[in-house]
């Protein structure tokens, strides 16, 4: 495996990789859909590999398109009590909290 400047040539994304990534992304996938996604991703990555043609060792990565420094603001609360508004859209809640399935056994 080469990790420096260039993308891996002919990396094939197999079913196992797709399942691993979907686990990382917290999306459950049916077997059939995973196969289709592997095909799609391979054709997309084949297209992306065009970037290998370019030498970029001495190029600075572009991290922000807006050439601006991040602004500071005063550390002050600017919103009123918005608990109800925040909880309003929750799929499951009690008076004060979001409710989720049991996490600790």
């Amino acid at each position, binding site marked *: *495996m*080469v*990790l*420096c*400047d*260039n*993308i*891996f040539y002919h990396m094939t*994304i197999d079913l196992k*990789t*797709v399942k691993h*990534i*979907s686990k*990382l*992304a*917290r*999306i*459950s*996938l049916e077997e059939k*859909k995973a196969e289709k*996604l592997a095909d*799609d*991703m391979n*054709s*997309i990555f084949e*297209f*992306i*590999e*065009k*970037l290998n*043609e*370019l030498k*970029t060792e001495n*190029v*600075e*990565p*572009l*991290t*922000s*398109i*807006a050439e*601006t420094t*991040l*602004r500071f*603001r005063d550390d002050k609360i600017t919103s009123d009590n*918005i608990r109800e*508004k*925040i909880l*309003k*859209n*929750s*799929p*499951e809640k009690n008076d004060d909290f*979001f409710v*989720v*399935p*049991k*996490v600790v056994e």
Partner: protein
Amino acid sequence: MTEITSLSLFELIKNIKEKKISSNEVTKSFVYRSEKSKKLNTYVTENFENCLKLSKEFDNKPNFDLKLPGIPIAVKDLFCTNEVRTTAGSNILNNFVPSYESTVTQNIWNEGGILLGKLNCDEFAMGSSNETSFFGNVQNPIAKDLVPGGSSGGSSSALAANLTPVTIGTDTGGSIRQPASFTGTVGLKPTYGSCSRYGIVAFASSLDQAGPMSKDVKDSSILLEVISSFDKKDSTSIDFKRNNYSSELTRNIKGIKIGIPKEYRVDGMPGEIENLWKKGIEYAKDCGAEIIDISLPHTSYALPTYYIVAPAEASSNLARYDGVKYGLRSPGESLIDMYEKTRSEGFGEEVKRRILIGTYVLSSGYYDAYYLKAQKVRQLIKKDFDDAYNKVDAILTPSTPSSAFKIGEKSNDPVSMYLNDIFTVPVNLSGLPGISIPAGRDKNNYPLGLQIIGKPFDEQTVLNIAYSMEEKINYKNNITDWWME
């Protein structure tokens, strides 16, 4: 008098200010036409009753100093609207009702605009045909079963069908300009940092930008003036002196230098597009512009770069949809199981595909090879434009490599769908302003657009060139109302 709904925004404002028509009459006309146009499937959420009520309130206590006095406006359903459902075209936000307002829409209401409804779009703005929306395909009023473009497809369709006088979209890789081109309308993507991203459902934060869509260039200048503002709530909002775009609009572009990039003459580009571009060059010359050949050598790397950067940012942004705080929740046996089922049921195929690509390119061991590489190439693409702008004031290209296609024609081939954005994506990667104006028709009589790209923060020059060329081109949509009930 011409039908109210076919008037331009400028004419509507003029008529309202001269008290020739009331806000309520205008609103009734657009509501009536929208009610008769359900077949287009442009609206996800209608706000008709409330809009009519607010228009009466405006008429009872009018303020004609406002820039959009009592004007009803439907917006893309990617803008959060206080107490009005906002779905981003996704099942996962099907029942989401924001408790706050996006800055861009707030700017519109502050100037007297009234929300008419929320318009369909590709799910999370990921798509070029509006076919990825959870709420179904949108019809292009130009012809039956034709896509309206995407992702702002509901916006372009509603605008071209005269269901809203103007609208706003968002553009991450071409999502304003491509649908404008497909529907014979005008769409402007402003410089990154011009219009606040606060309250816009995020797709790819370093690329997303809101902008006006309208029937003519003047209307876009009026709307841009309203929506462009510095906003503390957006950390990438830029505090620069904004023009009075509409009052400074001029057709005097004598001596302005317009670049023609040779790399945009891509393989397999239809002859019609090539001819349209040539005609556009002649129009620009007629307007007094000087045409200069330029080179943007890294153009062909823009799409591959985009398809690393955009999915990477999307996978991070969409991590927030976990079924806990808002949106859809699918029951699961454990917390992880709940997350996985929620996201599997809540997201559509294209969104999943992009989340997985993004997760992959950002995953341990692959970051340098993909994401870092793409950020470096993005620098080269931006530098191409910086160099070109030493010689020219603006750049003229086609907006899209083809006219609108049929629904279903490209939905099974993601790469061919992505190629739609070949001329628009470099503009987002470089943070530049770009406009698409209707410029001609193909053999099927479908509209084709030309794109004018400007220097950062120089929307005025972009608008002036477009305004000037628009007069020479003299394009008119001929809509037959085939969908009307």
